[in-house]
């Protein structure tokens, strides 16, 4: 057998394994959530009751879907100006300087901090600060969770956009300069439009991370199974309710938690598909 065939075989096998794992996961999620959907039908998605009490069992995922989407969108909006400026700073204005190197390292460092540490920091440091600003509910809630999520996704959005911005060809920028454009004109008329699809892809990836984030959110959102009625209200997210409740769950409750997992999987899939579509349209 020649080396070409061996390589081909190994590659085929490993891709097949990945396919098998992904397929198996989807299958078990669907299979596990059948009892929940059989019992509650589509109402499972839009009902806001989550009552695990024996004899009165009734489950609906809306509070968690709402909590997940609200915190993730808020986190994206909060992180947007910060990470966008940071990526321009790193990739264009101060590119290659010592300052940029230090800042770049700090951003990478932020990306490496485990989520539980963000949660601890939020619980013991950020929350007391917010309470002193008069935040209700002892500082727990959607706002605090979004803030932590925003800090957590900044490094992702920043380094991805930074990478794309640095890849904009110098010829383009030099051409603009030679026409008499100022630095900011070059950035907003040449660099950003050229890097647009990559930057958006970076934010979509960050959004995906915010959707699935569990530990830090659990520690700060207040874990109240209600639809948040204000930005400062307590709430719960899909990932967090699964992490909290699966331990002692059985029967219908376990199936409902798996169904929430399936919904989260679908939402993430849809977001990714939208992202790909946008990138395709723009480039």
């Amino acid at each position, binding site marked *: 057998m020649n080396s070409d065939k061996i390589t081909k075989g190994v590659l085929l096998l490993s891709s097949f394994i990945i396919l098998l794992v992904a397929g198996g996961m989807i299958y078990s999620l669907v299979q596990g959530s059948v009892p929940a959907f059989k019992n509650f039908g589509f109402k499972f998605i839009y009902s806001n009751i989550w009552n695990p009490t024996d004899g009165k069992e009734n489950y609906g995922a809306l509070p968690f879907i709402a909590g997940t989407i609200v915190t993730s969108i808020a986190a994206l909006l909060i992180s947007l100006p910060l990470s966008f400026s940071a990526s321009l700073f790193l990739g264009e204005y101060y590119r290659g300087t010592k300052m940029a190197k230090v800042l770049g390292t700090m951003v990478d460092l932020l990306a490496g901090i485990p989520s539980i540490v963000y949660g601890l920091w939020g619980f013991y440091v950020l929350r007391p600060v917010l309470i002193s600003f008069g935040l209700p509910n002892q500082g727990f809630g959607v706002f605090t969770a979004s803030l932590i999520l925003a800090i957590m996704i900044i490094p992702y959005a920043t380094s991805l956009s930074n990478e794309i911005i640095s890849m904009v060809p110098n010829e383009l920028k030099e051409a603009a300069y030679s026409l008499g454009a100022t630095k900011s004109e070059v950035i907003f008329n040449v660099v950003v439009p050229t890097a647009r699809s990559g930057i958006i892809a970076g934010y979509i990836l960050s959004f995906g991370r915010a959707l699935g984030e569990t530990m830090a959110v659990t520690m700060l959102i207040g874990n109240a199974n209600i639809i948040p009625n204000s930005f400062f209200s307590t709430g719960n997210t899909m990932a967090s309710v699964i992490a909290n*409740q699966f331990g002692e769950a059985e029967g219908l409750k376990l199936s409902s938690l798996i169904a929430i997992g399936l919904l989260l999987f679908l939402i993430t899939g849809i977001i990714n598909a939208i992202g790909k579509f946008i990138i395709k349209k723009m480039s």
Partner: protein
Amino acid sequence: MKNLAIIILAIFVLSACSNSGKNAKEKSASSSKVTLTAAGATFPMPYYNMVFKAYTSETGTLLTYGGIGSGGGIRSLTDKVVDFGATDAYLNDEKLAEMPADVVHIPTVLGAVVIAYNLPGVEGLKLSNELLEKIFMGEITKWNDSQIAANNSGLSLPDKDIAVIHRSDGSGTTYIFSDYMSKISSKWADEVGKGKALQWPTGMGAKGNPGVAGTIKQTEGAIGYIGSEYAFAQKIQTALVQNSSGNYIEPSIASVSAAAKGEIPADTRVMLTNSDDPEAYPISGFTWIILYKDQNYNGRSKEQAMGTVQFLDWLVSAEAQGQAEKVHYAPLPDAAATKAKAILRSVKYGNEALLN
């Protein structure tokens, strides 16, 4: 080069350690053939860890316990992968009927659920049944509410919001607490009910006893419920709770133990909350070990069956019970221990009795 030498040395030392560990295991296994496997509730784990270890060093019987939750304990026994399971909530008649064979309950120790709060300078807060209901249903929202003040003359209560903290994960602690609340308040029983997880009318959730305790500690004006074994070990400030005789009782080893002094059924399947005993702390409960009544299943040997019941007989004996207090659990009162021993004597291997 130097680093390499250190690494090689470290590997040698480590492998030597693991070898000697293996030898020790083999030795004790040869002196006694029985190895018992158990899994279940996390609430009694500190106690089980301590006494299981003591029993192993005394008799050579190897014991392993997996703290996987009460639900997991019941599942493991159903699947017959353990010698006995452990649970904080007894199996009701319906669940007993679902088990593949007859199952018996052995109470092993008592624990309680304490009401912890964070109000600096306010000690010995007294909570009547009515106050407990109204606070945890979100009807009283301020600490200086006249209803709390009327029940606590002499305490200066601040003008602060009450922050109710409950468990966000499913838990036997929540089960005992909600069982008690359902007994003292018909409104709670109707609107909330009892279970390992609830639809909470107010408040916010934190994960595990450490999560609830930590949140209360961090939050002035917070109130919540915590497993006594954790609260006693951490010396957390707790409220006095009114029992069925109208007395305000501080949670302690003695007052928790007193909850099991009254009449208990022969199979010990009973929730001890709201006990009749005038000295009893009302939010107390047993934790149980569950095993099959006929130990001859799945091809288990008679030695294995004998080892199981002998160990459990020791677990409810004065020797093991005397150690419960060290890890902040309340020992079984004599009457309960006698009932547990009687149940163990009904456990058989085929038709043969195992203990006499």
